[in-house]
């Protein structure tokens, strides 16, 4: 009597709102307690109106139609995020289910993440239930998009269920269809227990809470359990289900989704993808796990106040407990001091991590511009990975990072990560999109018409070209109608160079960037110009140079400051003048000194913040 399903869709097509209606119809959340996107619990999710973490909830549903009418089923529903940075959350959720509700906005039609998530669900062998949402919208075109949807999944347009998550129309029917269409989990209730960990979070009060889907057997309260990857044994302090608040249970049985608490303090001891079994008479074969998500972009994060370094480390440790995709290791920058090189799934992920660090841990941070990971092969056959521009061979000296000082031999080849990008857009904009992709070193893989007016374009593009402002560009070229999805597909050799920025002859490591040779010049010129505006005049002239190795490609000059004195100093000005001096001295503490040049933090922040316009998520 169990049905496990997840809700998948393109960003904003209404997954969380549809989940709200299900929570209400099944009576697990009462009207009074209801709030929009109930399952988006984090402040940052609520503020941005997006889902970042998947949420699993158990819903009791007494079917109102069909064969099972009158019978009560246990539905385990998982609401998933839609943004491309969090695709791995979707994959994990899919592995805990037999069915997927594929939601499409009836006013927008199929978009890039619709396809991406559809393929993920097909790969995971799930039964698909196509749903058109937002049919209440005046602009909805259910006929047209039902046909589009039927066309891509190969079903009949009449099978597409039409709902409005806003008004609730059609949702009861959908719940009945889930009961009817999704098959109950098949597992061996009598076999040694095996449960798949699909999420693991750290809770200040309860320690690590591990979310599992039981495949075989059952897990009971007070039982001792074993993590199959490490063999570590833990006492089970609590098992339960999410309904939608955590609710204790005696056991969770075959096919069920629930949580367990063992008292471990570190999520790494309860790893996503691991298999949980009983410590006695346990299973011998683990379930196939998940691929751990690899960071796509790296950036340095530094506390503005150097004294905050230990606090930043603690905060990153804490965030990592709930965010397995976040990587970090210490690094030192000549310009920015002590900080961390952090790996992120994408720019939205980076933005969210940074915002959480600043808000939840009260830190002021500065980040370097993000870069992809490069692989460098040297002529002597050695090879290494570059996650920080200062490790890139052939720099112009100056301050170098703590680890991996750039090697001196000759480079044989540099490889950069490439992605397979899918763009869906009205066909009117094909020309403009192609121009954009070509400008970003993309190569066209293919193009398909989803309908007469809508087209899907597939490209291979270097990650570094797509991850920054590509999405904004796409949106503006398609009047907001274009959507983008991408997934890593490997690497390709590329003609990359490191551009260094020198102030008064000193390389400022924080401004070094790895760029394609063709864009090196424009990068150098624009950053040098920007810095000229941002660096206050000093007592001496400060040249700003951009260089590839020892070759200068751009030069600007900050002229020497000639006047820094207040003309008047009457009796009444003295107190004010002293206070101004105290403020200026305070400000000087916030200056970083590069060689002899004093650079205000604000200049770093301003110069770095526009290094790439982060994709805003929608």
């Amino acid at each position, binding site marked *: 009597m169990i049905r496990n399903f997840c809700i998948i869709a393109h960003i904003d097509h209404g997954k969380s709102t549809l989940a709200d209606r299900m929570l209400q119809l099944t009576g697990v959340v009462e009207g009074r307690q209801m709030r929009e996107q109930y399952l988006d619990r984090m402040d940052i999710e609520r503020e941005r109106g997006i889902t970042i973490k998947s949420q699993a909830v158990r819903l009791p549903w007494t079917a109102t139609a069909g064969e099972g009418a009158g019978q009560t089923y246990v539905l385990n529903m998982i609401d998933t995020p839609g943004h491309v940075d969090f695709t791995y959350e979707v994959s994990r959720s899919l592995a805990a289910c037999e069915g997927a509700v594929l939601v499409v906005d009836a006013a927008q039609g199929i978009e890039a993440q619709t396809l991406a998530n559809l393929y993920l669900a097909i790969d995971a062998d799930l039964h698909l239930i196509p749903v058109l949402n937002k049919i209440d919208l005046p602009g909805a075109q259910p006929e047209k998009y039902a046909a589009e949807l039927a066309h891509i999944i190969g079903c009949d347009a009449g099978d597409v269920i039409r709902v409005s998550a806003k008004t609730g129309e059609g949702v009861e029917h959908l719940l009945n269809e889930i009961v009817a269409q999704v098959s109950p989990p098949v597992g061996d209730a009598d076999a040694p227990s095996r449960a798949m960990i699909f999420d693991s979070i750290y809770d200040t009060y309860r320690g690590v809470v591990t979310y599992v889907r039981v495949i075989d057997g059952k897990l009971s309260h007070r039982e001792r359990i074993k993590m199959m990857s490490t063999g570590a044994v833990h006492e089970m302090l609590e098992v339960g289900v999410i309904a939608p608040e955590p609710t204790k249970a005696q056991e969770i049985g075959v096919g069920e989704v629930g949580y367990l608490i063992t008292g471990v303090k570190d999520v790494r001891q309860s790893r996503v993808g691991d298999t949980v079994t009983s410590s006695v008479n346990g299973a011998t074969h683990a379930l196939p796990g998940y691929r751990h998500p690899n960071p796509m972009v790296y950036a340095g994060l530094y506390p503005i106040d150097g004294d905050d370094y230990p606090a930043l480390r603690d905060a990153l440790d804490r965030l990592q407990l709930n965010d397995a995709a976040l990587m970090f290791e210490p690094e030192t920058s000549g310009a920015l001091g002590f900080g961390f090189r952090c790996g992120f799934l994408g720019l939205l992920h980076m933005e969210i991590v940074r915002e959480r660090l600043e808000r939840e841990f009260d830190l002021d941070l500065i980040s370097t511009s993000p870069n992809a990971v490069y692989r460098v092969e040297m002529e002597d056959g050695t090879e290494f990975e570059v996650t920080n521009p200062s490790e890139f061979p052939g720099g112009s000296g100056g301050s170098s990072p703590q680890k991996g000082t750039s090697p001196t031999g000759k480079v044989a080849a540099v490889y950069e990560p490439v992605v397979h990008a899918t763009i869906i857009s009205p066909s009117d904009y094909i020309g403009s999109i192609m121009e954009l992709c070509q400008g970003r070193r993309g190569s066209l893989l293919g193009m398909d018409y989803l309908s007469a007016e809508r087209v899907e374009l597939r490209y291979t593009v270097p990650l570094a070209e797509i991850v920054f402002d590509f999405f904004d560009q796409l949106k503006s070229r398609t009047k907001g109608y274009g959507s983008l999805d991408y997934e890593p597909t490997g690497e390709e050799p590329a003609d990359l160079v490191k551009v260094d920025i020198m102030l008064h002859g000193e390389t400022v490591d924080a401004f070094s960037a790895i760029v394609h040779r063709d864009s090196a010049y424009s990068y150098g010129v624009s950053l040098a110009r920007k810095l000229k505006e941002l660096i206050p*005049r000093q*007592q*001496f002239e400060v040249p700003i140079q951009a260089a590839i190795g020892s070759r200068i490609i751009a030069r600007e000059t900050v*002229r020497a*400051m*000639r*006047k*820094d*004195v*207040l*003309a*008047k*100093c*009457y*009796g*009444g000005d*003295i*107190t*004010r*003048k*002293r*206070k101004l*001096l105290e403020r*200026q*001295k305070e400000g*000087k503490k916030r200056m970083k000194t590069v060689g002899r040049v004093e650079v205000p933090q604000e200049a770093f922040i301003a110069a770095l913040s526009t290094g790439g316009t982060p994709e805003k998520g929608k």
Partner: protein
Amino acid sequence: MPSALPEGDPAPRDGVLPESALSGLGSRRFGLYMHVPFCVVRCGYCDFNTYTASELGDDPGASRTSYHRAVIHELNLARKVLGADAPPADTVFFGGGTPTLLTPEQFDAVLTVVRDEFGLAPDAEITTEANPDSIGADSLRRLRDSGITRISFGMQSAVPHVLATLDRTHDPERVPRVMDWAREAGFDHVSLDLIYGTPGESMADWRTSLDAALDTRPDHISAYSLIVEPGTALAQRVRRGELAAPDDDDLADKYQLADEVLGARGLAWYEVSNWARAPAARCRHNEIYWTGGDWWGAGPGAHSHVGGVRWWNVKHPAAYAARLAEDRSPAYAREILDDEVRRMERVLLELRLSDGLSLSVLDPAGVRAAARQTEAGNLEPAALDRGRAVLTCRGRLLADAVVRDLLP
């Protein structure tokens, strides 16, 4: 709009000073400042604590005619607070605003009280600021008779379009005339205030103003770079783009020109913005400010300093008069300076003077910074060898940066 007063500690109702401030009173030079907060019109660049008749309205407490009574009341209070040891005044300075809007009788009344309560040192310097517009030959004679010894005229510029931008109403021709009248009236010390860097002022305009000023043979000149004070009409015009903001390079060029031209015609700098024909022509009152002397500032918004305590009065003439009518101290707030703050002030004030700062005031890092600044051409090498930090012409333009470098 007058600028806001600094915040500080609460000042006691009776104005009483801590014992520490009073000890040594009389061993330091002592001055009196009278703030006269009235002007006929407000100049667009000015954020001084001054009010036009229409701004004051008909609040009886704030009236120009009763102003001197409140000031006299404060002088009585000052005498009480400073006690029997209060020294005779070395200097008295009437500043504004436009002090010459007071009647001769008001000057007499105030100066009489000064003589009665404090007495005047034998060769006391008694200065008043004056606008070329609001003064004539007769009134200059009357001022001299009242005992005033020194006049400082607000000339600002000799170029009509510059004066217009500054909202100054006087005819440039009037400046040589008032200078002659002042000398005829018996003033040995006459100073002119100039402003450079006004939007639209060319290098040649500035040269014209300097020459015109020198042609009237003042024994003292103050030249200030135009400061766009927040909240002023000038600031608003700059923000709207009607006027260009003063440019630091232009100001630096004009300062250098001033130093050259004034020097060539016999006026030597003795403070960043002040030049005098001889040491005796320096403004002794301002020197008290710059060398940590004591002074009592009477009048609305006036600042005082006695023995390491600074305080400042409430700004509005009505509030000021009301306080004194209740026999209360008009002080709005005060601060008691600790040793480190006093040291900081010494550095920032004394470094501005041609006599410079003794290196003994600096800590070892400060002395090293002084050597660096000498290297950079901002301090005089010869003076450094004598143990003093004295700014070069280039250094005077960077004085604030040098101060920051010399202090920890």
